[in-house]
């Protein structure tokens, strides 16, 4: 038995412990296990766990693996629907897309590692989500990412942005999965805790879905992929603690990714599945071999016997607890029948990968692990996989009413020009091209519509003649969620739905990535609970099921939580062959109309934040019934087979949306004349962010038809103005010009903003 020193955060324990050393309360506490939990373990085990076993509990009882604070709330999500083939609880959710084909998708966070080591943190986040999808048997076909960074005045922001973007790019580009779209935003609440959420969708035959079951007594348990090293040991525990300013000392807990090995593992795994050589499979993600083995046994209600000496290790002398908790990347655990072991190994050998039988499935409900013929772990599966749920206190912030106060008078006295200027200078109103051109958005020969549109669109080329297209979008508005978590949840879902609909797609399912502060903070639990209610309300109203997801708590730095950020990833389907609508001013002779309420709410708007330098005002509640009508209007508009452009109104209000449509125009001379409808509040019309509001642009001959459709659908149609070739952006009220600016100048400011990150 190897003797080793134990790293616990920054302290190195002076006493030397072995895997089989008995544990005690102090040790348990230092590994993040509470006294109640420790007593629960000892009582059920009828003995004291040894150090290796304690390490297993430490990882599996961590918030990251156990969902002990979130489980009861997550049950509120609607998770069923006619397309759902696999709901939450597996590596990824699966939806039927017809003709015998399905899609598997999920979103995951890699926030903490990305602050400690941005490049590897983001890269391994990509690796993890890709494996989650291909373990289901699906070939990854598209990725997206949602990134929340700190502001430029924080000295590390630039290097974090650079590292994260390069990490995502280098990994995804090499594996050959296009990164299509997503969301990037900047706010000081993310200075020391950036959010890196990665989404991947894969294509799978509906009758060839694989799951994480260790089934069949006597079957072989096989380790495949890269060797196990000491990287990432106690990573799940690290991700379940708040950041302190000396967090950078925790660098050894961040894993290192190798996209080349991932690509080989992807091909070998899919080939083995195609040859029907796999019974159950799971990625070794957080808590590595520990979580994959216990969870697979748990799902199949079986036991496992594992010989830790058989694990391909990168270095000699690794202790059992290190082998068990290593988060070395690009590894999987696989179960198959004894006679399929040889052909399976042959496939992995072809791809130059390790495949070693490390144990077998046994009856009963215990996982036993040996090292040098000594039993080092002997635990009942349920004790590990069903931790005590944490009962967390919940309470709303005391200053909620103050947060909802918005000083309209201060806004009314300011000139339109000055408000306009503050938006133009806003870091969050910028061209994301310098960032997204670093991602390969086209590999796979599937990409129909790119990253600059409201949503990314791919085709499912596997389906041949019956090829459908899928639209993908991730979204969350943390400003709104901080002010009113329930509306934030509603809005994240609503925003995604409207983004998909303007691209012509019908929303069919969502995955989530819920990024919050410490669950030990009652205000955070209140935010969490309320956000989930909001998400559920919107999902129910729009009949969109939640099929997979991830919770990331402890996004705090020095006791201060990030803004609640319940990120939503939504998938929509386009089953017809009609051309996609435009999302820009595709001509200089278009008429513009606003569909939806003429005015929007200023509470939580980008305008309010940039003007008052803080979030304020009560966000207006999304009218979900109206949203449903709007989605139907957009579907009918598409079926009219006319040419038009559509773009939704969100951050920065109508004004920013019109500018974006102009900036993406293929003509440098594009100009816009915008008429303010009589009797409306200028600020609320131009800068309000109530959902749903959209802009449509079309040839003037189509106006009657579109107006009729709107009235039939029960959505308001308001004429807005037209495009021209003056290259001037002009806003007019009752004949008088209230704002005028040169579009090329505005565009150049919008273009330049993020370039500085990548110098």
């Amino acid at each position, binding site marked *: 038995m190897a003797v080793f020193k134990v790293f616990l955060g920054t302290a190195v324990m002076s006493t030397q412990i072995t895997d089989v050393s008995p544990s005690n309360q102090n040790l348990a506490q230092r590994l993040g296990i509470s006294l109640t939990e420790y007593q629960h373990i000892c009582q059920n085990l009828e003995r004291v766990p040894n150090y290796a076993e304690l390490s297993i509990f430490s990882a599996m009882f961590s918030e990251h693996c156990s969902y002990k604070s979130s489980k009861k709330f997550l049950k509120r999500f609607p998770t069923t629907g006619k397309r759902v083939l696999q709901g939450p609880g597996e590596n990824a959710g699966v939806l039927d897309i017809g003709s015998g084909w399905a899609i598997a998708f999920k979103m995951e966070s890699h926030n903490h590692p990305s602050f400690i080591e941005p490049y590897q943190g983001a890269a391994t986040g990509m690796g993890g989500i890709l494996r989650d999808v291909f373990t289901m048997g699906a070939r990854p076909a598209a990725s997206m990412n949602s990134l929340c960074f700190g502001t430029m005045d924080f000295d590390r922001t630039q290097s974090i942005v650079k590292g994260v973007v390069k990490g995502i790019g280098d990994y995804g580009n090499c594996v*050959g999965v296009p990164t299509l779209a997503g969301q990037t935003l900047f706010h000081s609440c993310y200075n020391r805790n950036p959010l890196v959420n990665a989404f991947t969708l894969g294509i799978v035959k509906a009758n060839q879905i694989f799951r994480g079951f260790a089934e069949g007594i006597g079957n072989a348990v096989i380790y495949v992929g890269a060797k196990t090293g000491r990287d990432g040991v106690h990573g799940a525990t690290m991700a379940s603690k708040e950041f302190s300013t000396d967090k950078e000392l925790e660098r050894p807990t961040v894993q290192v990714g190798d996209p080349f090995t991932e690509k080989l593992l992807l091909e070998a795994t899919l080939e083995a599945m195609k040859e029907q050589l796999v019974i159950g499979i799971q990625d070794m993600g957080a808590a590595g071999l520990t979580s994959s083995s216990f969870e697979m046994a748990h799902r199949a209600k079986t036991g496992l016997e594992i010989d830790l000496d058989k694990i391909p290790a990168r270095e000699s002398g690794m202790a059992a607890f290190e082998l068990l908790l290593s988060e070395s990347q690009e590894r999987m655990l696989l179960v198959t029948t004894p006679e399929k072991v040889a052909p399976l190994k042959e496939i992995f050998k072809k791809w130059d990968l390790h495949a070693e039988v490390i144990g077998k499935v046994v009856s009963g409900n215990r996982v036993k692990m040996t090292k040098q013929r000594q039993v080092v772990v002997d635990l009942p599966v349920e004790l590990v996989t069903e931790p005590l749920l944490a009962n967390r206190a919940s309470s709303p912030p005391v200053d909620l009413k103050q947060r909802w106060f918005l000083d309209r008078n201060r806004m009314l006295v300011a000139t339109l020009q000055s408000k306009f200027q503050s938006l133009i200078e806003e870091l969050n109103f910028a061209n994301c091209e310098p960032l997204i051109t670093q991602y*390969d958005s086209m590999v796979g020969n599937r990409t129909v519509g790119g990253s600059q549109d409201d949503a990314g669109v791919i085709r499912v080329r596997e389906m041949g003649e019956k090829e459908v297209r899928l639209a993908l979008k991730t979204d969350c508005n943390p400003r709104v969620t901080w002010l009113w978590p329930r509306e934030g949840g509603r809005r994240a879902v609503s925003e995604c739905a409207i983004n998909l609909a303007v691209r012509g797609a019908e929303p069919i399912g969502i995955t989530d990535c819920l990024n919050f502060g410490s669950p030990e903070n009652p205000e955070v639990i209140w935010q969490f609970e309320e956000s989930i209610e909001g998400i559920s309300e919107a999902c129910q109203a729009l009949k969109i099921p939640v099929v997979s997801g991830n919770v990331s708590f402890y996004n705090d730095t020095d006791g201060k939580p990030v803004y609640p950020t319940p990120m939503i990833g939504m998938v929509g389907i386009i089953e017809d062959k009609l051309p996609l609508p435009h999302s820009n001013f595709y001509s200089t002779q278009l008429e513009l109309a606003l569909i939806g309420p003429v005015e929007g709410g200023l509470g939580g708007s980008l305008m309010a934040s940039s003007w008052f330098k803080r979030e304020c005002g009560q966000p207006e509640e999304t009218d979900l019934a109206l949203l449903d009508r709007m989605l139907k209007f957009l579907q009918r508009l598409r079926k009219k087979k006319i040419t038009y452009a559509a773009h939704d109104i969100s951050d920065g209000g109508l004004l920013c949306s019109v500018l974006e449509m102009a900036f993406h125009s293929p003509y440098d001379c594009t100009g816009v004349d915008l008429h303010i409808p009589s009797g409306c509040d200028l600020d609320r019309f131009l800068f309000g962010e109530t959902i749903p509001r959209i802009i449509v642009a079309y040839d003037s001959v189509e106006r009657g038809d579109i107006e009729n459709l709107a009235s039939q659908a029960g959505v308001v149609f308001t004429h807005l103005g037209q495009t021209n070739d003056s290259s001037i952006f002009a806003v007019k009220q009752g004949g008088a010009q209230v704002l005028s600016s040169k579009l090329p100048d505005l565009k150049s400011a919008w273009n330049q903003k993020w370039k500085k990150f990548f110098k």
Partner: protein
Amino acid sequence: MKIGIITFPGSNCDDDVYDSLMRSGGFELTKLWHKDTPELSDYKLIVLPGGFSYGDYLRCGAMAARSPIMEKVIEFAKRGGLVIGICNGFQILCESGLLPGALARNLSLNFICKDIKVTVETSKTPWTQTIEARSTLNLPIAHGEGRYIISEEDYQELIKNGQVVLTYQDNPNGSTHQIAGLCNKEKNVFGLMPHPERASDLRSKDGLKIWQSLKSFLGQQS
């Protein structure tokens, strides 16, 4: 018309080339494995697809250029067989000595993926014989190391022999003399950084023009 598409460990555009040639029609496609050494004489064309062969470790294309199948490809090319290398395939062609010059890191040091415009410099190659010289093709690029470099002396040699096939209109990576694609002196080996297979039916169809030219060339031969 039998076409072989090689899969190296880390190739990720092999399926895309397959898909694109299928959509173009008229080809019989076979995928070849890097560890094999098949007889290539009945193939009309060998494709080295894009991707990150051997993880692009060491140097892009360096390890793939020394893999077992490349001995056969080099033999095939020396006998006049048509070989096209796209992106990583172009890097492999340079590393294996079938094409002159080398590909270095983009001037911006960043990976760049976008639709760009290239000028077809010559119609006097099998790859462009049905495309008008000086015409523009809309093709996507996606690479981190696509900056083509060659000495001025060797460049003059390329010009003299009409080997420069494609040039960038807005040099995205800082290539010497905007070179985006070139062939050997005999014109049977062609390397290019843009991806014609990604422009066969989505966004742009200009990639098909290269396949059509090939088809016409091979049709004349048989």
